[in-house]
Structure formats: C-alpha cells, structure tokens
C-alpha cells in the first residue's frame, strides 16, 4: 500500500530542490479555534506566511429561517446567533423590531434589559478571558472564569428559566418580571465578583510570560481596524472610540455613568486590558441600573398581530459583548420580515486575522484569534 502510493509521486526535476509552503489545517476540529473555524495556514518553518479562514462549517441559514418566521418567533433564533451572549442578540432584534414598528418598551423593561445585557457581557467576557488564557496555555483562568459565569447563569435561570438560550428580551418588553429576590442576589453576586477581577489580573495581567505572548502581538492600527470593519473591544484596544452605547445610545445608556474603555497600543494585551476594564465598568453599570429600577409594567401593549409597515426598513445597532451588533430588517407589511440580516462583530473581526498574523509565529495565531474574541456561530450564522 505504502509503496504503491510512493511510486505514484512523480519526481519533478525542476521542483526537486525548490521549497514549498508547509500547509497545516488548523481546524475545523482544533482545540484553539473555539468551534469549527478552519484556518489554512501556510508556514515557513514556524513563521506564518498566510492564514486563510474557511467559514461555513456552522452555517445554519438563520437569515433564511428568519424570513420564514414571524417577528416574535425570530427572537428564538437570535439566541442561536451568538450563544455566548444571547441576551445581546435578543436585545438587538427586539430593538430593531420596535424601531421598525414604532413601539417603545416601558422604563422598567428597559432597565431590566440593561441589567441582563450587562450581566451577559460579564458572562461573555469571563468565558472569553478563560478561553484566551487557555489559548495561550494558562488553563486555570478558564475554570475561574466559568465559576463566576455559572453564578450569572444562575441569575438568568432564576429569572427566565434558561441558562444559554434565553428568549427573554421580547419585542415591546421582557418576557417576565424578575423575582423579588433577584435584586439582592444580583447585588450579592456583584459584591462577590468584584474582588475576583483583581485575582484574574494577578494571574495574568503582569505575568511576564503573558506579557511576552501578548504585548506587541497582532497590532491593529486604528486606520486598518476601521477600514477592515473591526469593532467592539477589539477596536477600542487601538484607541478608537467606537462604543455604540456612547455613539448612538439605546435603552437608557445615556442616563447612566460609564466610561468607554480605551487603550492605545492595539495589540493583544490592549484588547485584553479593554475587556478586563469593561468587566469593572459593567459591574458599576449594573449597580446603577439596580438602583434606578422602579416598579412598573414590563411590556407595552402590543397589537394583536405584529406587522411591519409596508416597504419599511431599519438598520439598528447595539453594542454586544463582542462589538457592534447590527440588525437590518426589511418589512413588507406582513407578519414576517422580508429580509433579516445580522451584522455580527465576529465576522469582521475574523476577517482581519490574516493581516494580523502574517510574519508571526504559529503560536501567535492562537493569541490573536483569542484576543479578537471571535465566536464561530456568529461568524457563520
């Protein structure tokens, strides 16, 4: 068998002494690609010559499905677009639909949405921190991150009954009001959680090996980042103010105090720092929201049949955990969207991977990929 195959290889005299790229397939099944992203990497020794991402292994045609569902039914699919921060996508779709139909959620619902989206941001960033550290080789932060994430998911489960795909934020409000014990439990969690951030930072931030691996690696310059559509914390690491919460405030983000976390270097370490600072900002945001939570209705009175106005369209953006989450909806006067496009942060952030890794070592692909916080279901949809 072996001999047969070897005999079929023709020796080409010209190419006998030539060199060839060392092509390796990272993925679709690989420990560091966070799912089923496939990277065809051309190597020269350890040095990366080119990284070609191959997408589509997790394509579930959510946009086509949504064209065949009513607006409320679409919300259940938004959970699956980015299952690590499903609340954000829920919110993005709910907001887009509300703006399309000229609805507005009551204040209590808006505050609740903010609380849950920010909790989701905590959960997502915690998972990201663990996965990023794991990509670089530190395995313990992953477990620490998941440990705290579990408590957040407990809060979600207590409120809406699910831990991953919530279907909680609905058009015109939220699914159900929080339980009376939610607020004290949430506050207790925040008090428990805040010192833990310092612990993660002890483990990672100034660890010399971590610094070696992340500082100066995968630098996104502001010009390249903006032009390539990088968004969210990944772009804020380059010093571009791009937080949709500040730029185009939705919900009550214009009524609360929070800082947009900016770093200037644009390398993996800056992106890490941005996200770690966002953890603290989110904690303070949730505290403010809990303070301002007042009793009231949790959903608006909706028409019996939710129909979009004919020939209407909306492009609505929010800041999800990963960056700019845009929903483009085209209504045609029926109960179903004519077109529903999810603009996902990971899609654009993955695009820039090739530029960032050229000339670096193969291990840096994992560091850069991890620091971009891409998640495959969002890329492929």
């Amino acid at each position, binding site marked *: 068998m*072996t001999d047969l195959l070897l005999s079929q290889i023709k020796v080409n005299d010209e190419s006998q002494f030539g060199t060839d790229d060392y092509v390796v397939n990272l993925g679709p099944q690989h*420990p560091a690609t966070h799912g089923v992203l496939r990277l065809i990497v051309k190597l020269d020794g*350890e040095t990366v010559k080119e990284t070609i991402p191959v997408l589509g292994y997790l394509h579930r045609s959510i946009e086509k499905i949504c064209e065949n569902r009513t607006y409320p039914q679409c919300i259940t699919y938004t959970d699956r677009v980015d299952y690590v921060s499903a609340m954000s996508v829920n919110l993005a779709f709910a907001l887009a639909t509300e703006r399309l139909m000229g609805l507005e959620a009551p204040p209590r619902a808006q505050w609740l949405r903010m609380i849950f989206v920010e909790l989701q941001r905590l959960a997502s960033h915690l998972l990201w921190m663990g996965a990023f550290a794991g*990509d670089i*080789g530190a395995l*313990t932060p992953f477990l620490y991150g998941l440990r705290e994430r579990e408590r957040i998911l407990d809060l979600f489960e207590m409120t809406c009954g699910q831990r991953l795909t919530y279907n909680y934020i609905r058009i015109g409000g939220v699914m159900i009001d929080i339980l009376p014990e939610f607020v004290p439990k949430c506050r207790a969690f925040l008090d428990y959680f805040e010192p833990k951030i310092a612990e993660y930072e002890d483990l990672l931030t100034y660890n010399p*090996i971590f610094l070696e691996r992340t500082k100066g690696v995968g630098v996104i310059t502001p010009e390249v980042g903006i032009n390539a559509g990088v968004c969210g914390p990944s772009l804020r690491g380059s010093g571009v103010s791009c937080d949709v919460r500040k730029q185009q405030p939705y919900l009550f983000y214009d009524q609360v105090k929070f800082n947009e976390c900016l770093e200037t270097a644009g390398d993996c370490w800056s992106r890490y720092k941005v996200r770690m600072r966002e953890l603290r900002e989110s904690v303070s945001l949730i505290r403010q929201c809990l303070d301002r939570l007042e009793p009231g209705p949790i959903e608006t009175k909706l028409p019996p049949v939710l129909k979009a106005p004919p020939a209407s369209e909306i492009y609505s953006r929010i800041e999800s955990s990963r960056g700019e989450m845009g929903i483009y909806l085209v209504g045609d006067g029926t109960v179903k969207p004519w077109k529903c496009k999810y603009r996902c942060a990971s899609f654009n952030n993955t695009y820039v991977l090739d530029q960032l890794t050229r000339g670096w070592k193969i291990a840096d692909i994992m560091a850069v990929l991890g620091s971009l916080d891409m998640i495959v279901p969002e890329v492929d949809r």
Partner: protein
Amino acid sequence: MLSGENIVKSVSDLLHQLYAMVGLSAFKGVLDPIVAAHVMFGFISVFVMFLVWMERKVSAHMQSRIGPNRVGIFGLLQTVADAIKLTIKEDIKPVHRDKIPYYIAPIIAFVATFAGMVVIPFDKGMVVQDLNIGLLYIIAITSFTVIAILSAGWSSNNKFALLGGFRSAAQIVSYEVPLVLSLVPVIMMTGTLRLGGIVEYQSQNHWFVLYQFIAFFIFITSATAEANRAPFDIPEAESELIGGFHTEYSGVKFAMFFLGEYIAVIVSSAVAVTVFLGGWLPPFAFLAFVPGFIWFMIKLLLVIYLVMAFRWTFPRLRVDQLMDFGWKVLIPVAILNILVTGFCVLFFGKGV
C-alpha cells in the same frame, strides 16, 4: 535504627542468602543490578501513578474542582484504571509511518529518563549505583529524550507532530546548557560529581539553596523545560499543535511517553533535591530521628508540587521567546553565577 542504609543492607543480605539457597551465589554481581532495576521500576511505576493522581488533584483544587474521586478512596486508583484502559485500547497507527523510529521512540523516551534514576540517592547508601560521575551521567542520559521526541515527530508522518519534534529538538538542546551551567557552581564548591558526595558536603555546611538560590531557580526552570512541562511544553502545545509529537500515538506507546515525561519530572526534581536541598538530610538536626528517605520524599514532593504549580498557573511561551529566555536570560545569569562563585571559592576557600 530505621535508615536507608540498614534497609538496603538487610535486603541485600536476604537476597544473597536466597542466591546461596538456589545455588546462584556465583552470579551475585549480575543478579544484584537486575533485582535493583526491578525494585526501581516497581517503585517508579507506583510513584508515577501517584504523581499523576497528585497532579490531577493539585490542578483540581487550584481550579476549585474536586478531581478524580470515583475509583478508590480519593480517586487514588484512577491512574490504575487509566493505565488499564491505555493498555487494552486499540493501538491506532498511521499508515504512512516510518516504522522503525515510530516503534523505538516511546521506548527511548521511557528508557532514557528511567536510566537517570540509577544514581539518585534516596538515603545514605540507598542508591542503585553511586557513580562518581553521577551528575554528568544524569545530564547525559536524560538528554536522550530529544532523540525519542524527534523520531516520534518525524516518523508519525503528521505535520503537527513534525513541528513538535523540531521544536523539542531546539528546546532541549538549548536548555541543556543552562541546566549544566547551573550545576557547575555546586561542583566547584564541592569538588565532586558524585551525588552522594554532594549531599555529604551539605551535611557539613548549609544546603546549597542558601548559597545558590539563583542556580536553584535556573535549574528548576531548565529542568522543567527539559521535561517538556508547561510553561515550556511547546513540543506538545495543546492549543497549537494538538498533541505535538505524540499526536499519532495511542495505547501503550502513548503511555510510555506519558510515563517518560513524569519520570523526567521525578529525576530532575530528585537532582534538585539532592544538589540544592540537602537530599536525605533533615532540615534541622533535632529532626534526625525521621529516616532520611522520608525527608527525601517530602522534599521531592514539594519540588514536584512547584513544578505542577508552574504548569497550572503560567501561560505557555512562544518558541522564539523560549529560546530568547534560555539564551538571553538563563545562560548569562548562570555564567555570572559561576563567575561570582568562582571568586568566592578563590578568596574564601571551598566552604564559602
């Protein structure tokens, strides 16, 4: 009194009586090493199993988990179960493997590290063969693993394995240098390469870790790198190269690599204990009633804990940074250390 020397003496007396009973007294010189090797192998196997369990428990508690707790009390028999699983599972071999290196590699990986155990003195006189070039022997024999890893990487016919093999070759060769250099000051001060002699020197003076803290640090670091343990585990970097050089190995062959890695940890930790932490010596004179080999094991476990804590705390270095660290930090510091020690020996005599 219970001491390593007495135990060894009574056991060898017993053995010699046994030989005489079956009429093999003439082959005493051949049989003794064979028996010693078997004893050592038994000890090492059990100890590695314990270490694997310990590593899993240590990592579990560091990560607020429980760890293995199903097989045996506290999951102590978990490793036994794993070993049984590894021996009876199907041996999957790549079709286009290079047959001879593919089969030899795990054997070399195991034998090379295991042979290092020969000169480790567990107690005064409790040593298989106290060679007068003991340190040199260990350094020489353990670096054989690079052949094993390189041939495993090459013969697997897998791109990731080959990358892992190359990385390992570069790494082990580079870290051999600081490893040796960190031991040189000790040899300069003691004037012997015999491990037993080094411990005896420390029994008259202080432990070397007090004089040679920097050398101790360099030794632990480069020994971790020699054993391919995190944060220097780039040859098998899980998140980059999947399994590195042992991607294509399964079953018993994988188990031998695994065993080899842990034995390498034991050997290098044992050398660290012997050279820098006073070997079998008790930390204070009044604790001398505790047998020496118990002190040795306690110190050994502490050092191994340190190595494990490295693995579960630190990120992994990149391959070029690893080289940078070896050549630009460890080697200059080690050479500086040698110079300083040399001056001290010159001016203050051997006792510092």
